[in-house]
Each structure stands twice: as structure tokens, then as C-alpha cells.
């Protein structure tokens, strides 16, 4: 199986503070990798560097056979980003637009934008997929936290990305909604056959979605394995995640 994502020796510092310290990881095509770690360990910085929202200091990022850090800024980078979806921790819905406008926004602005009928079909399709078909005319302010996450997921999926990044998809949600979102992520992955990288510290989310888990500590990958392998590990640091998985780490 091919590697859809490969990161080698990625480093990032903010001033004197080293956040990522020569981190390396890979994700196979169609696989879901969960990156676990305490708050502030650099998980979000890692995926933001991978999609060039932040520029890393050193290292290599290869996504879908493209050397991401060498793609020139501008049209080429935009073209690459259209193959990748990103779900933000806050959802980041455009609050001046309705749900329908939020979903249409990226589609309408592609150089080869689909026909109007295709746009309408895709909007209806993704909304049905996330179970919110009746929200097209609602504003983001009228939606609950869980609904916002679902719409944000729909907005990412409408571009039919080959790779999806999720930044803390269940943070700020109640346990029931968190589980629903995690299950939705798994369903969407199966439906659209995407490769996924999920940043989280929610063990329930990791249990539901992960094919494989890596755990970050001090800017490096400390441990790697499946959910069950990690659960059986005796290391107290690893067990801290399992014993108190709902607590903010």
C-alpha cells in the first residue's frame, strides 16, 4: 500500500521555544492515523505545518506524492490544497454566510468550478451525509456546537478531498455529541475513502476512528500502535490517557 502522507524530520520553533523536534510519521492510503498528546505539545502546529498554514523550520512533508514544502506559494499551492480537507477545532464556519453559502464557497471559487446543478447536488449530498439536510438557510449562529462541527465537516468533504486533516474534532462537545462526531468521521471516511489524520486528546474519538495511533511527547513521536496495543501498555504516561480520557489533558 502506498504512503499518502509522509513526514520526515519536521521541526518548528517559535523563538527559543522548540515545538516540533525532528518529528517523523507516515499514513498509508485509506488509513486513519490519530495523533494523541497533551494540550500544548504541538499537535495543531504539526498539521498546520503539513498544510503550510505555518512554515516549518526544517524537514520534509510529502502528501499524495507532492513535496508540500517545495510547492510555490500561489496557484500551485491552492491547487494542492484543493485535494486536502481540513476540519478546524472551532469549525471556522464563515459567520456572515448561510450554511448553503458556506458549502458553495469553495466549490464556486475553483478554476474549473462545477455547473450550478452539480453544485446544488453536492451541497444536498454532503448535508444529507452529515444528517443536516434542513439547515441550508440557517446562519452559523443559529446552530449548536455539534451541528457546526457537522457543517464544517460537510464543507471540507464537498471538495471530495483525498486526504482529511482533523484538528481536535470533538473538543468543546458533550460526550454524546463527541461520540456522534467521531462515528460520523468514521462513516465519512468509509463513504469517501479518504486518508485521515486526526489530532485529538479524546481517547473515545481515537477508539472509534483510529486504525493506528501515535503519541506525541516533547515535540517527538514517543509511542506508536493500535488502540488495543496502547491500552495494554503498562507505561504510566500512556495509561494516564486511558484512565482519565474525558479529562482535559
Amino acid at each position, binding site marked *: 500500500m502506498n504512503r499518502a502522507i509522509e513526514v520526515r524530520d519536521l521541526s518548528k520553533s517559535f523563538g527559543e521555544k522548540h515545538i516540533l523536534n525532528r518529528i517523523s510519521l507516515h499514513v498509508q492510503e485509506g488509513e486513519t492515523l490519530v495523533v494523541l498528546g497533551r494540550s500544548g505539545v504541538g499537535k495543531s502546529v504539526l498539521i498546520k505545518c503539513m*498544510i503550510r*498554514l505555518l512554515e516549518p523550520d526544517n524537514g520534509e512533508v510529502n502528501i499524495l506524492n507532492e513535496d508540500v514544502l517545495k510547492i510555490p506559494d500561489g496557484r500551485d499551492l*491552492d*491547487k*494542492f*490544497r*484543493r485535494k*486536502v480537507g*481540513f476540519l*478546524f*477545532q*472551532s469549525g*471556522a*464556519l*464563515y*459567520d456572515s454566510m448561510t450554511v448553503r453559502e458556506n458549502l458553495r*464557497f*469553495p466549490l464556486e*471559487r*475553483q*478554476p474549473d468550478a462545477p455547473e450550478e446543478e452539480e453544485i446544488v447536488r453536492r451541497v444536498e449530498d454532503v448535508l444529507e451525509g452529515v444528517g443536516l439536510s434542513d439547515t441550508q438557510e440557517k446562519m452559523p449562529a443559529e446552530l449548536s456546537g455539534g451541528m457546526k462541527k457537522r457543517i464544517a465537516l460537510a*464543507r*471540507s468533504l464537498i*471538495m471530495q478531498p483525498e486526504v482529511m486533516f482533523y484538528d481536535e474534532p470533538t473538543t468543546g462537545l458533550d460526550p454524546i455529541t463527541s461520540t456522534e462526531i467521531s462515528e460520523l468521521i468514521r462513516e465519512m471516511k468509509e463513504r469517501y475513502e479518504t486518508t485521515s489524520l486526526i489530532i485529538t486528546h479524546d481517547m473515545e474519538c481515537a477508539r472509534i476512528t483510529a486504525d493506528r495511533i501515535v503519541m506525541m511527547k516533547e515535540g517527538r513521536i514517543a509511542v506508536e500502535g493500535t488502540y488495543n496495543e496502547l491500552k495494554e501498555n503498562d507505561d504510566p504516561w500512556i495509561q494516564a490517557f486511558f484512565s482519565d480520557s474525558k479529562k482535559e489533558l
Partner: protein
Amino acid sequence: MYMRTDALPASVKDFLVGLAGITQFAGKFFRNFWRPPFEIREVFYHAYSLGQKSLLLVGITGLIIGMVMTIQMRPTMEQFGATSWLPAMVSISIIREIGPVLTALICAGKIGSTIGAELGSMKVTEQIDAMTVSGTNPFNYLVTTRVLAVTIMVPLLTIYADIIALFGSYAAMNLEGSVSFKLFIDQSLGSLLFSDMVPALIKSFFFGFAIALVSCHQGFTADRGTSGVGKAANTAVVISSLFVFVIDLLAVQITQLIIS
């Protein structure tokens, strides 16, 4: 020869860094201006929305300034027996200087804070990042459209303010004495030259451009957190007002050079 930047006071360094940031931002605007997609509908939307929001304030201020100038100048003009020159003096002052600068300052306050807060909140809630990662061009959609809209609207608002101010002046003239509207218009517009109106209108375009550019820059570079939004809105107003005065000074010098 290079100067060591650590020898500069922090405030001077901050000022220079800010100025460099705005200059880079302006460069990005001109590079993106030619890059599709062209968001023409958004330009019209912002022109209408931002212009309409300032209409009442600009109108009221114009009316009051026209009246106040006429009332305050009248006694002096009477002393010299030159009351008949009053409409001409008021109209020249308003059209050359007070109309454009006052309108620009109102827009810097009203439009500048709106843009700074809007874009600042989009920045801190990661909405701009969301546009970026979806492969769209947030700069074109958010900045180019607003800069074009405000650059178009400030001169139009200036013309509107000038007209209202002249009406204010006419009303004030009639508070003491009676002047026919035709006579007032003949006297005030008859004394205006091409060189009074065109430079004023041209500098209004630059005022609009500077206000929008500075405000968009502040919003786009807002720090994380809600305090960053407030700071972006506030700094947008302060710096764009300062730019209005600097551009005005330059415009006056250039106009004088061209005329002479």
C-alpha cells in the same frame, strides 16, 4: 551602509515594522488585483454596505460644518465689507480641503473600525485559514474587494458631503438676511476653478485606498484572541486617520507644485 536596528527605540522600530508590513500588503494587493476569480459582486456589495452605513453621519457632519463655517466667517467678512464673498469662501474651503478631509476622517472611524473588527474576528476564529486551506484566495475575496469598494465610495461620499455642506451654508446665510438660492449657487460655484475640484477628488481616492488598505492590514494581522479584534479595530482607525493627514499634506504640496 546598514544601521543596527537594536540601536533604535522600540517605538520607532515598531513604527518602521508596521510601515513595512503595510507596504508589503499594498504590494500583495496590486499582485492579487489581476488574479482571478474577480469578485465583482462583492465589490458592489461592500461599496453599498460600507457607503450606506456612512451616509447619515457624513451628511449630518457636512450640514453642520457648512453652517458653522458660514456663521463664524460672517462677522469677519462684514468687518471688511465683503459679505458677498462669503459663499465663495465657504465653497472653496469646503471643496478644496474640509469636505475631503472630514469625509475621510469619518470613513476612517466608521469604515476603518468595521473592516478592522470584521477581518480581525475572521482571523482569530480561523475563518481566513479555512478559506486558505480550501484552496480559495482569501486575499481577493476579503481585501481586494473592500479596498476597491472604499476607494470608490470615499470620493462619492466626499461629493455628497460637499453638496450637503453647501446647503448648510445656504441655510446659515439665510439665518441673518435673505439670499436667493440662485444667487448663492452663482456666487459659490462661480468662483470655483477646475484646480479646486479635481485635486480634491483625486486625493479622496487616495484617502479611500489608504483607509481600506490599513484597516484590512490590521484585521488580517490581528493577534489571537478577542482582545486582538479590539486592537485591530482601534489601530485601524488611528493609523488610517494619520495616513489621511499625511496624504493630505503631500497632496497639497503636489498640487501647489503643479499649479505654480
